[in-house]
C-alpha cells in the first residue's frame, strides 16, 4: 500500500493524541481535578490554555480528557466491528430466513438517527464510560454488517470460494481463509471512517453528561461547561476541548480518505 499524504497526516494526528492519553501523567503540568490557579485565567505562561471556572488547568484537563475518548472509541469500534463483521459474514453466507430477518433489523437500526439511539441506550444502561462504549458499539453494528454482507454476497459465488466448498472445507475455514481476507481493504476504510463517527458520538454523549461523572476530565463535557462562559469571553474553555474533538475526528477522516484513495489508485492503474 502506498502511503498517501492524507494517510500520513491522519495517522500522525491519531498517534499524537493516543500518546497524549498514555503519557498524560508525564505531560500534564497540574492535576486535572484540582485548582491550580485563579478562576478563568486566560492563557498565560503558567497555564498555557488558561484555567476554567474552578481554577483548574485547561491544558491538563485536555491532556487527561484524551483518555476518556480514546478508551470509549477503542472499545466501541472493536465491539461493533467484530460483532457486525461476524453477523454480516454469517448472514451473507448462509442466506435464507435468518439473513432476511437480520438484514431487516439492521436496515431499520441503520435508518434511525444513531446519536438518538446511542442516547437512549446509554440512558437505559446507566451513564458510565463502559456503557457509553457499548451504546455506541450497538449503534454502529449495522454499518459493518451491511458492508460485510454485501461483499460476502458478491464474493461467495466466485470460483475460488466454490472450489473450497467443493473440497468440503468447513464453513468457518472458508470464511477465515477465503472470504475475510477479501474484505480487509473495505474494512480498513470503514473502520477508520467509523472511528471518526464514534469520536463525535462519544463527544456528544459526554456533552449530554452521559459518560464520565464530574470532576473526571472529558472533552465533550468540558465543552458543555464552557458554554456557560461565552458571555464572560472565556474562549479558551471552548476552543481547546472543542478543537481536540474536531482534530481527533479529522485524523480518522483523513486516514479513511487516504486509505480509500490508495486503494482506488491501486485498482485503477
Amino acid at each position, binding site marked *: 500500500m502506498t502511503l498517501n499524504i492524507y494517510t500520513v497526516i491522519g495517522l500522525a494526528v491519531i498517534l499524537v493524541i493516543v500518546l497524549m492519553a498514555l503519557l498524560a501523567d508525564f505531560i500534564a503540568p497540574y492535576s486535572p481535578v484540582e485548582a491550580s490557579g485563579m478562576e478563568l485565567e486566560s492563557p498565560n505562561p503558567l497555564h498555557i490554555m488558561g484555567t476554567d471556572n474552578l481554577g483548574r488547568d485547561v491544558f491538563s484537563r485536555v491532556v487527561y480528557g484524551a483518555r476518556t475518548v480514546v478508551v470509549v472509541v477503542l472499545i466501541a469500534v472493536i465491539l461493533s466491528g467484530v460483532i457486525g463483521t461476524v453477523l454480516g459474514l454469517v448472514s451473507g453466507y448462509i442466506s435464507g430466513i435468518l439473513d432476511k430477518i437480520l438484514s431487516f433489523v439492521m*436496515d431499520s437500526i441503520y435508518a434511525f*438517527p444513531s*446519536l438518538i439511539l446511542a442516547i437512549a441506550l446509554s440512558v437505559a444502561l446507566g451513564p458510565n464510560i463502559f456503557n457509553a462504549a457499548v451504546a455506541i458499539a450497538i449503534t454502529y453494528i449495522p454499518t459493518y454488517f451491511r458492508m460485510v454482507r454485501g461483499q460476502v454476497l458478491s464474493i461467495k459465488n466466485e470460483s475460488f470460494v466454490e472450489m473450497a466448498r467443493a473440497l468440503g472445507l468447513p464453513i468457518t475455514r472458508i470464511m477465515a481463509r477465503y472470504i475475510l481476507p477479501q474484505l480487509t481493504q473495505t474494512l480498513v476504510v470503514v473502520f477508520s471512517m467509523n472511528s471518526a463517527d464514534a469520536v463525535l458520538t462519544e463527544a456528544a454523549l459526554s456533552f449530554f453528561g452521559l459518560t464520565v461523572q464530574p470532576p473526571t476530565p472529558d472533552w465533550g463535557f468540558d465543552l458543555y461547561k464552557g458554554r456557560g462562559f461565552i458571555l464572560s469571553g472565556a474562549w479558551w474553555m471552548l476552543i481547546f476541548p*472543542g478543537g481536540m474533538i474536531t482534530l481527533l475526528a479529522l485524523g480518522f477522516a483523513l486516514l479513511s480518505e487516504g486509505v480509500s484513495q490508495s486503494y482506488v489508485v491501486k485498482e485503477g492503474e
Partner: protein
Amino acid sequence: MGLARYIAFRALLIIPTILLLYTLVFIVLRVLPGNPVLAALGTKNIPEEQLKALMRELGLDKPLYQQYFEYLINFLRGDMGYSMIIRGRPIANDIADKFPATLELAIWAMVMSFALGVGFGYVAGKSRGTALKHIARLYGSITYIIFIPALGLFLQLLFGRWLGVLPTGGRLSPGIYINSITGLYTIDSLLQGDFNAFADAIKHIILPSLTLGLVLSGPFARLTLSNMERVLGSKIVVAYRARGVREEVIARHVFKHALIPIVTYLGLQFALLLGGAVLTETTFNWPGLGTYLVDKIMYRDYTAIQAVVILFAFLVGVISLMTDVAYALIDPRVRY
C-alpha cells in the same frame, strides 16, 4: 399502478420498519432499566404503597405485552402518556409545543446544507480544472466530522460575543412576541406582517441553521460533484452537444440527473439531521424537541424520553416514505 396506489404500497412497506423501531425503543427504555420509576426517582427508599400507586398511574403495573400494545395504540391516537416527573402533565402537549421549533430549525438547516453542498458540488462539477474538485472533496470530508457544539459555540463566540451582531441563543429576543399560526416564527411573523419580529426570528435562526447546515452539507457536495462528473461523461451529454444544445442548458439537464441520487440520500440525511438537531438545539438553547429530550434525560423522565424517541422513529419512517415518493415523481423510469 397509479401514484396513489404506489404511495399506499410504499407506506405498507414502511410499517414493519416503524414497528421494529418502536419495539427496539420499547425494549431499550422499558425493559432494560428494570423499574423505570425507581430509576427516575433515583432512590429505592419509597414506601411500597406509594410506588404501586405511581406505577398504576403511569400504567406500568400491567404486563409488558399489554403495555407494548396499549402504548402503541395510544401513541397513534396522539396520547403519549404522562410525565414521570411533573405529575399529570400530558407529554403530547409538551411535544406539540416543542415540535414547531425543531421543524423550523430542520427546514432552515436543510435549506442551508442543500444550498451550500449542492451549490458547491455543482460549481465544482462544472469547472474544467481539477483544483475546485479537490477542494470540494476535501470540504465534503472535513465538514462531515465537525463536532456541532464545537462549531456552534465558536460561532456564538465570534458573532455573539466578539462581533456582537447576532444573538447566542433562543428563538426570539425578550419583548418580541409572535402569535403562533404554524409555529414557525419566520413564517408566522411574515403572515402577520410584523417585519420587526421577522428580522429578529431570522437573526436567531441564522447561527443554529448555519451550524447544522454546514455539517450536513459535506455529503451533498461530494455526491453532487461525483454525479455531475458521471453524467457529464455520459453519452447523453455527447448527444446533447451533437444536437447543438448550449452548454448552460446541458448543465441544467445534467443537474437534474445529478439530483436524483441525492433525493434518495435525503432520507438518510434526515436521520443525521435529527441527531444533529438535538446537539444544535442544546448548543443554542433552542426550545425544541432536542432540548426537551436532553432536559428529560437529566431528570431520567423515561416516559417523556420514550415518547420523543418513538416520535423520531415515526418521523424517520414517514420521511423515508416521502423520499420514495419524491424519487418516483422526479424519475419517470420508476414504474408505479
